[in-house]
């Protein structure tokens, strides 16, 4: 009886602790460049969901393999008081062109629908920022200012170095826990389907 009581209590304690960690909203400012303990805010948006790679290819102005150049800036668009929008303008070097009018070696600007601030990591539909390790296949729309936006948010960026299937995202404590994850949203099955098609076409 005592053993049972002890076991049940221990399990309750462990479960309670993990629940606290997973719902904790504590924010810690990043003091070291490699340690980013920030809350994650993921916003739902109305966007087009691409059924397959063909739909992406048909809709994209540019399809290119790129590397992050290391240069990026957070863009705060101030339209009027109360109407601001923030994203990240990231510089990438074009490594290979599959479609559209950009050139190998060219450095282009890509608007990414996510940003990091002192308060947290903010993302539209689970999009995560490109990093220096990745080799990215991007589907892009041309913008009026000569830069590009990522087509379909998370659907327009694939790290060709990451070949494993993404698992459902379990609860996490901070951005630090997920910063290397390619996609942070709920549509994991959809993302994996598109990723698989892209890997098949562009890496084999």
């Amino acid at each position, binding site marked *: 009886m005592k053993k049972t009581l002890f076991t049940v209590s221990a399990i309750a304690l462990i479960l309670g602790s993990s629940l606290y960690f997973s719902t904790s909203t504590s924010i810690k400012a990043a003091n070291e460049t490699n340690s980013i303990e920030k809350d994650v805010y993921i916003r739902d*948006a109305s966007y087009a969901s691409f059924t397959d790679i063909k739909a992406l290819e*048909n809709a*994209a102005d540019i399809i290119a393999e790129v590397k992050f150049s290391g240069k990026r800036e957070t863009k705060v668009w101030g339209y009027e008081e*109360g*109407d601001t929008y923030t994203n990240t303008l990231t510089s990438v070097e074009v490594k290979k062109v599959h479609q559209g009018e950009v050139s190998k070696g060219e450095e282009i600007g890509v608007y990414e629908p996510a940003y990091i601030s002192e308060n947290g990591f*903010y993302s539209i539909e689970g999009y995560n920022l490109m990093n220096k390790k990745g080799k990215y296949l991007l589907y892009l729309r041309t913008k009026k200012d000569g830069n590009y936006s990522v087509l379909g948010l998370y659907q327009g960026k694939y790290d060709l170095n990451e070949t494993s299937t993404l698992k459902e995202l379990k609860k996490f404590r901070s951005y630090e826990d997920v910063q290397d994850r390619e996609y942070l949203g709920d549509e994991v099955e959809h993302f994996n389907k598109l990723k698989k098609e892209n890997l098949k076409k562009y890496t084999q």
Partner: protein
Amino acid sequence: MNKIVVTLSLLTALTSISSIAYADLHGRDALWLGGFSENVLEDFDYWESSTIDTYNLDDETANARLVFENQVNNEIGSDFNFWRVNSSGDAELRYYANDYTDDWYGLMTPYKINSSDNYVEAQFGDQWDRAKIQLNYELMDNDGMTAANRDWTVLHETGHVFSLKHNPEADSVMRTVETSFWGNPIFFDYDEFTQLDLDNLDYKY
């Protein structure tokens, strides 16, 4: 022949099961835990930027509010009321339209008041004090949205204000936009909530 019948039956069953598995979201699964309190929504102050009128979205925002005041109130017995205010600072809900550079048609952002008395972005599990709807008119135009499609988009975003999550493949205002083989977005024309949406709103309020 028997083998074919059995195989076809199994395939049909499996397809049905997979459809059910990725199926409509109901009740708690269709809603964020947080949101505005029902009291606030019964006396809900809103403000519209002049950009809503400039980019011809004023009918759509008005229609969305009417759906809540008429259809939703009649169907679920709620008492939601929208009141226009002259100052954005007095509004719990604010509407804007602009070219927001990224690839989305509409975005709802909730806010809460923090311990320093400032509005900060809220999580979907928090109690909200304010919300903002931003409508990306440039992309709407670029992708060929009709007025009916815009009606749906604005109603969809207003659904988020009432804590409704996406319901990707359901017969629901909260479903997501799909694309054709050619990559063209396929927009829907919902101008009021479906029974699923009403049931989900009824669950929360």
